[in-house]
């Protein structure tokens, strides 16, 4: 869970896969890279099996590139399209039962606090909309009520994409999918507002169409979760396979929805979190 673990033991350099050697030589550990440095180093994600043009894959890639301290971060995932990426991620990660991710992360954070009392270990939950807003809403909300210091990132593709396209709580009203032929009967719930009311210190809704905004949101969320309280980020990640649009239209679609007003970038920072961010800013200037 720290940098030396990723090093190759002497004598084993020859038999390690070339990707791993590349990761050790040019990886981002301990270098403080961000989204702007992508393309200049070996990324934490390797080639994954998600569809061409997948918004969710783009969100994960940008979110992992934005982590402030990747070598001391543990990612908790859940079932869904996102769980197909995590076997290819060079971070410590856990695949929990469907919907259990925030309960697992809560225990993990407490255990890490006991084991490493003088070191910051970040626990980040990255799960889909089904795991966060439908099946695991109970565990997610309870972790916020208990003020667990974890970051929850929801990859909102507005459907159960991995199982053929069932409607989820995040699908919009009237959405017709493969397994929802009559269209969804009720509107999309606003989880950022729920998070705000449930006690999150920092809540943001953004999308991979704005990589710099996404980076800022993830960094702030992880830093605030260390000191203040739970944080929540919702990333709109359209699914070309289930929503039947062309793979190159993922980002134009997000921008179109922003124009229509059906998706808005939001940010909420509690007073305590704002004070903490100000103190970080002052420390940086000095």
């Amino acid at each position, binding site marked *: 869970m720290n940098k030396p673990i990723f090093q190759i033991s002497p004598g084993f350099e020859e038999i390690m896969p070339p990707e791993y050697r590349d990761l050790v030589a040019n990886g981002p550990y301990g270098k403080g890279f961000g989204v702007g440095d992508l*393309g200049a180093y070996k990324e934490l994600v390797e080639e994954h099996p998600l569809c061409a*043009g997948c918004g969710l894959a783009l969100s994960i890639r940008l979110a992992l590139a934005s982590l402030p301290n990747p070598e001391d971060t543990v990612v908790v995932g859940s079932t869904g399209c996102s769980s197909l990426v995590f076997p290819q991620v060079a971070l410590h990660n856990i695949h929990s039962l469907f919907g259990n991710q925030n309960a697992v992360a809560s225990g993990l954070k407490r255990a890490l606090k006991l084991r490493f009392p003088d070191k910051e270990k970040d626990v980040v939950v990255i799960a889909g909309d089904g795991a966060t807003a439908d099946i695991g809403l109970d565990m997610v909300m309870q972790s916020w009520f208990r003020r667990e210091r974890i970051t929850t990132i929801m990859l909102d593709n507005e459907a159960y994409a991995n199982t053929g396209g069932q409607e989820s709580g995040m699908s919009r009203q009237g959405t017709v999918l493969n397994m929802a032929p009559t269209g969804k009967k009720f509107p999309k719930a606003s989880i950022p507002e729920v998070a705000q009311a449930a006690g999150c210190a920092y809540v943001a809704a953004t999308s991979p*169409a704005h990589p710099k905004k996404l980076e800022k949101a993830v960094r702030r969320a992880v830093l605030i979760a260390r000191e203040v309280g739970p944080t929540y980020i919702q990333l709109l990640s359209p699914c070309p396979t289930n929503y039947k649009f062309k793979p*190159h239209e*993922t*980002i134009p679609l997000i921008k179109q929805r922003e124009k229509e007003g059906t998706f808005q970038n939001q940010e909420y920072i509690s007073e305590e979190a704002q004070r903490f961010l100000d103190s970080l800013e002052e420390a940086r200037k000095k």
Partner: protein
Amino acid sequence: MYYAAKLTEEKCTGCKICIMSCPDPNVIAFVCASKKVKIDEGRCKGCGLCVSVCPKDALNVSQL
């Protein structure tokens, strides 16, 4: 049939927007020496997201 993105090097200004909008990792690399991007065609899935965001029309998707 495999499709992959191709770069017209003269048009590329090295703004990196394509790198930040590619869903697959390590496909588009930034070459510091020439200040342009380089595409690994073996890894590219040919989705065309980079083409839709490129402000200079320097990219296109074609059959390999």
